[in-house]
């Protein structure tokens, strides 16, 4: 056996000593998690008040940090995230029954509120969570645009405005990091490679509930005074900030632990859980997008956790990592932040690129063009993106001698990125374009990503960056990448995989209305934002010179058009989910594995592990000879090789 497969259906049962943890542990869910989280936070608050010196300089920050950590730990305990380890310490092990219970067997909709190890449940949980986070970030974007509709702080004061931009930034970053990998990396990817679950199902559940745990301190930031440093929270400004900054640091660090755990899980799943015959040049391109992104995140995200830990230490323990009068420097923060910050752009982008390429082959009815080149491009992006971070620091004065080298690496990265367009055009070329909703997003992606990419080239040029850095030009550029490209990839993925996740089509007509509103809104908002930036408007300002009033007003109108489109999209998702048109098993006649299993997907995906004899892109090609007769058409529509059957029987 060359690949690890969960072949034995029933592992040897450990001696049955009552279901592990008895009835109590089975009763844990989101509600008990919240209760335990609040309780432990209260205990932490009381303890820190009674034990710490309330006259100390750092008292408030110490209390806030300990309290929010108390919430995170309490929530995870209360939802049952540590049931496995706790039982292990008590000398028990989970029985097969317990495992099935954890996977949500026979629990119905209740399993979505529980610590559930089924990757499909986790995928749906991520899907809903992503929508909530992006919606919260979107509301903040509207509040920002209301403020900027006219110059002169006419809506809120600068302190509230600064909280808006910081929270908008971090919520959108969190939402976009999980937007494609969370729902589809979890739900779809394991099935795509013929696995029955992720490599570490419990870690999978843990990564999702850590995200929920992180969301609470992040949203609590508003309640405890906001943050006034943007999501990049540059020190030393962030060292001086209110206790909102402590909530931010604990929340973001928790989120980074979540992405790290998820990243380990995805990479391991991709390496070890591929079914027989699923060679590295046969896996669907989407899985390459998710895996390269996860691997890059493993490298990049911990820098931010380190940076935030040092920040908390400066704030609550009186160290001076970032304080010049204590021997520290703001350049340390900037380096750590961008060592994360640039790769993170590609962590967000790569899964969306994978999804767009996957959609393009299905809806052009053609093989993916240049598979090897694309995979090479993705790996090249991962490698190069680790050595470009200081292009965000051209104007800091940190290392002027390195400006040239970092300009070189940044311009090199345009080569592997350009491969995406070659693959997309090559795949669409001579295609039989099936103009359904997902394909629309492919074309939208192409349009926006060209603009986002080209405007990035200006910023890679040091002298131009000296003018543009810190202006709305930069903001418009990365919104073309994040909204115009990543969000379009994500919405395309939603339209494409919705039938597999819910059994229903995403309503085509409403979906198109949403698409066109968002597409038009993006052009209006961000083209005019480019102009504001070129005219000299700094970013993160609550007011601006009168000369930029027109372009800002246009941006505000465009932003509301985007919001209208997104509300229609959300409405379409909810109504289609409840009462959409039945789609059946494989409405898109795709050749990837996830479409070959029944809908709804059975608990362990495949009754017998499939055996794969070619890549899933054989459109227009004579079907390869069957290796073995088809198994059970309904249960396992994928042809099962004789070898796998023998293995199962032995």
């Amino acid at each position, binding site marked *: 056996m060359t690949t690890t497969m969960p072949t034995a259906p029933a592992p040897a049962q450990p001696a049955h000593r009552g279901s592990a943890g008895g009835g109590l542990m089975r009763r844990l869910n989101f509600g008990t998690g919240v209760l335990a989280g609040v309780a432990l936070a209260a205990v932490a608050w009381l303890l820190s008040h009674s034990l710490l010196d309330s006259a100390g300089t750092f008292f408030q920050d110490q209390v806030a940090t300990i309290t929010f950590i108390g919430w995170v730990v309490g929530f995870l305990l209360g939802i049952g995230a540590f049931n496995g380890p706790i039982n292990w310490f008590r000398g028990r092990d989970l029985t097969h029954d317990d495992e099935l219970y954890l996977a949500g067997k026979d629990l119905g909709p209740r399993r979505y509120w529980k610590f559930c190890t089924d990757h499909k449940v986790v995928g749906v949980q991520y899907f809903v969570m992503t929508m909530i986070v992006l919606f919260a970030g979107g509301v903040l974007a509207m509040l920002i645009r209301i403020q900027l509709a006219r110059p002169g702080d006419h809506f809120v004061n600068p*302190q509230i405005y600064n909280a808006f931009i910081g929270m908008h930034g971090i919520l959108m970053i969190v939402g976009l990091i999980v937007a494609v990998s969370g729902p589809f990396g979890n739900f779809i990817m394991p099935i795509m490679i013929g696995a029955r679950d992720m490599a570490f199902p419990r870690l999978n559940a843990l990564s999702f509930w850590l995200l929920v745990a992180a969301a609470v301190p992040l949203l609590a930031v508003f309640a405890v005074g906001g943050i006034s440093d943007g999501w990049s929270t540059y020190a030393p400004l962030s060292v001086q900030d209110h206790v909102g900054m402590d909530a931010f640091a604990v929340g973001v660090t928790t989120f980074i632990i979540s992405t790290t755990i998820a990243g380990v899980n995805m990479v391991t799943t991709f390496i070890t859980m591929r079914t027989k015959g699923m060679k590295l040049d046969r896996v669907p391109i989407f899985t390459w997008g998710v895996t390269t992104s996860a691997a890059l995140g493993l490298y990049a995200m911990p820098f931010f956790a380190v940076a935030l830990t040092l920040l908390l230490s400066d704030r609550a323990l009186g160290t001076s990592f970032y304080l010049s009068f204590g021997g520290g420097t703001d350049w340390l923060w900037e380096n750590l932040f961008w060592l994360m910050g640039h790769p993170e752009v590609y962590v967000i982008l790569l899964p969306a690129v994978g999804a767009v390429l996957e959609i393009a082959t299905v809806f052009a009815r053609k093989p993916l063009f240049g598979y090897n080149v694309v995979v090479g491009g993705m790996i090249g992006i991962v490698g190069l993106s680790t050595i470009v971070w200081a292009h965000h620091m051209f104007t800091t004065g940190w290392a002027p001698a390195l400006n040239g080298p970092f300009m070189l690496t940044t311009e090199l990265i345009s080569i592997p990125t350009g491969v995406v367009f070659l693959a997309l055009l090559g795949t669409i070329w001579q295609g039989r374009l099936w103009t359904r909703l997902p394909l629309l997003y492919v074309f939208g992606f192409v349009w926006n990503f060209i603009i986002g990419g080209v405007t990035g080239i200006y910023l890679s*040029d040091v002298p131009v960056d000296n003018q543009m*850095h810190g202006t709305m030009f930069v903001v418009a550029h990365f919104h073309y990448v994040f909204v115009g490209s990543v969000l379009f990839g994500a919405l395309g993925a939603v339209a494409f995989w919705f039938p597999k996740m819910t059994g229903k089509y995403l309503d085509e007509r409403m979906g198109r209305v949403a698409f066109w509103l968002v597409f038009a809104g993006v052009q209006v908002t961000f083209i005019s934002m480019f102009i504001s930036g070129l005219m*000299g408007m700094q970013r993160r300002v609550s007011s601006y010179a009168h000369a930029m009033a027109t372009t800002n007003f246009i941006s505000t109108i465009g932003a509301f058009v985007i919001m209208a489109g997104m509300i229609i999209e959300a409405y379409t998702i909810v109504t289609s989910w409840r009462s959409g048109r039945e789609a059946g098993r494989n409405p898109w006649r795709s050749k990837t594995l996830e479409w070959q299993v029944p809908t709804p997907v059975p608990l362990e995906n495949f009754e017998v592990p499939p055996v794969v004899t070619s890549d899933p892109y054989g459109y227009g090609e*004579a079907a390869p000879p069957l290796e073995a007769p088809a198994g059970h058409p309904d249960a396992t529509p994928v042809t099962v090789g004789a070898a796998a059957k023998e293995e199962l029987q032995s």
Partner: protein
Amino acid sequence: MTLTDTPAPTPPSPEPPAARPIRWKEIVAVWLVLTAITVVGDLVVFPRVMPRSASTTMHLTIVTVVLFSVTAAPVGSLVYAGAVYALRHWRAGSGDEPPPEGPPYRKHNQLSIAWLSISAMLAVFLLVWGLGALAADNAVAQKATMTVDATGQQWLWTFHYPGTKVTTETPYLPVGRTVTFDVTSLDVTHSFWIVQMGAKIDANPGEVTTVSVTPTRIGDFDVRCAELCGLYHAFMTTQIHVVSASQYQSWLQTQELSA
């Protein structure tokens, strides 16, 4: 992947789907039109919306922006022309049944190599130009004959003329003379930006950073803080007055006397 989507596998079609003839003239025409529109747009829009240059640095920056835009125009337009052509000629239905499958193009080595070579050449061009512009910017510093200390703090800029007692929030500079700003901060990170001069450098607490410019015309120019520095970041602005050499001298003397 061997599939049994339908109960019995469909027998392989004897002929692979045929490619359709391509009207290259149409693609080239769309490409040329899109390129022309973009180039004209670049030439018209950028110099108008960007601030009128007030330094040699800013002049080079505007030239670079226009040059990069004009270079990118045919590249982006090529992708768009291909996408437009595909949408115009290869749409094949939007019903519930998929169209027949297309011709199985999996790769085209020469095309991939050409694509990679052209993008590499473009990257090299950008890099060479960028290094040249960077060297030109750095050369400005060599020509500096005067220094001004610029200090940021929440939320104002103060300028000190070394060797004099002059300290002001609205500095004067003589036109045509290269000046180096020694920039620092008293509290958090700020960024010293003279909008019309294309010069920007962060003001870091505990460090001194420098930026040099040669003002090329007389006028009042905007200084804006370009790094979020707290509550009134948006209002951390001032003006630099570029005047003739004689006016500058008399301003300096008046300031000295009143200091």
